[in-house]
């Protein structure tokens, strides 16, 4: 009697083909439809449902995170403390100088009746959710369309630019961070006024691309938004140049940036809802 080889088991291939075809149809629909399309609306509804869950998760885990930060801070050395105190003194002196310059600037602006660019209406929002997937750089905030938030609005923190509103539900919104791989910000080196594009990456690192090789910035230079493209207002701090590599064989130098915003720990943000205060119904801060 022959003992046959065990027959390899087969699954329901037809079912898999149907599911794959459905997924491909969804992908096609997603790329073809506009922002008001069915799938985008479904995403907005999902955001409305998931925002309270994200809020609960953040509320539950925040004491754990705070305790971790406290424990990490216990190891701060005396040397570091002294260095920070010295830096604080230096910054205070610099602040006084800048205040003087600001007041002078205000007087000059008034003289020439210059449009006040920083007079943008902002809306304070709390961060209630972090990126749900490693592949995405997006946070959830507790302001939505009921507060006047719309897709595409820039979002910033006290330290600089955070990102742009991607999806809006009535009481929550998703903000695509500038460190996300799909983000691109028209940037400018503050000192030399050289233009470039600030791009995020999968690892969350920022780079300044397409900068003219004739005017390569140096480490420590500040990069601000250029205002080109009309998405982000001009003059918001994006980050500081940390390293520059200019190889002869490459078309553009490799410029690495670091955002001043502690994006992984950020708790409050400001949504730039427009230049007119009357345009929004939410609380203006």
């Amino acid at each position, binding site marked *: 009697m022959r003992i046959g080889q065990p027959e390899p088991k087969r699954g329901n291939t037809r079912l898999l083909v149907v599911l794959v075809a459905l997924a491909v149809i969804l992908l096609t*629909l997603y790329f073809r439809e506009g922002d008001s399309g069915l799938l985008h609306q479904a995403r907005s509804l999902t955001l409305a449902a998931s925002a309270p869950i994200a809020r609960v998760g953040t509320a539950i885990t925040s004491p754990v995170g705070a305790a971790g930060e406290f424990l990490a801070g216990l190891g701060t050395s005396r040397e570091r403390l002294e260095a920070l105190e010295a830096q604080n003194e230096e910054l205070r002196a610099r602040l006084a100088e800048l205040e003087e310059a600001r007041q002078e600037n205000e007087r000059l602006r008034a003289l020439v009746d210059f449009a006040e660019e920083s007079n943008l209406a902002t809306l304070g929002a709390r961060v209630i959710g972090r990126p749900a997937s490693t592949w995405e750089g997006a946070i959830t905030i507790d302001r939505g369309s009921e507060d006047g938030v719309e897709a595409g609005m820039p979002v910033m923190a006290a330290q600089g630019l955070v990102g742009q509103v991607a999806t809006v539900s009535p009481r929550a919104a998703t903000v695509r961070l500038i460190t996300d791989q799909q983000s691109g910000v028209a940037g400018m080196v503050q000192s030399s006024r050289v233009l470039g594009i600030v791009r995020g990456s999968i690892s969350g690192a920022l780079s300044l691309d397409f900068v003219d090789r004739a005017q390569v910035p140096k480490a420590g230079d500040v990069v601000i938004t250029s205002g080109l493209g009309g998405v982000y207002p001009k003059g918001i701090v994006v980050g500081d140049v940390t390293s520059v590599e200019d190889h002869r064989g490459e078309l553009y130098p490799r410029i690495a940036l670091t955002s001043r915003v502690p994006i992984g720990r950020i708790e409050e943000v400001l949504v730039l809802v427009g230049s007119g205060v009357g345009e929004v119904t939410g609380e203006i801060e």
Partner: protein
Amino acid sequence: MSRAWTTIGALAAALILQVAFAPHMEIFGVSPNIPLLVVITLAIVQGPSAGAVAGFAAGLVLDLIGTGPVGAWALVLSVTGYTTGMLQENMFAEGWLAPVTVAVIAGLLADTFYLIVLTVLGVAPAFWESLVSVVLPAAVYNALLVLLIYPWLARFLRSDRSMKSFRRLA
């Protein structure tokens, strides 16, 4: 019928945990993919068809929660669920090593496949950088979590026979 409800409950719980807690469980820049862990376990204990359907449903919700193209995770998880079920059914290894090996392979395949899908769609980050900074660490992280949750989750999802030990699960 009760098995279907158990499956739906497990997937819903995984998605809730993903939104609420996964972002806060980040280690070395990667967060766990809890729905993926449930889909892998489901496929191992219930077979390729159940794995594919559960993968599609969980993937679709994962797509809608995120900011990436809708349909990408649905595609990846349905194929992952199906492949995992097929691997488990046709693998000659026995004992506890079989589901663990299958789970590790499936975790690695899922993120790699997602990267390939994004590349084909033209919205992918740098391929090698993603492979090193996301795919490999995520595979290790998810594999470790599968080792932790598989025995309990498999017992919960498989109602046809009682299981008293990890060895019997395999």
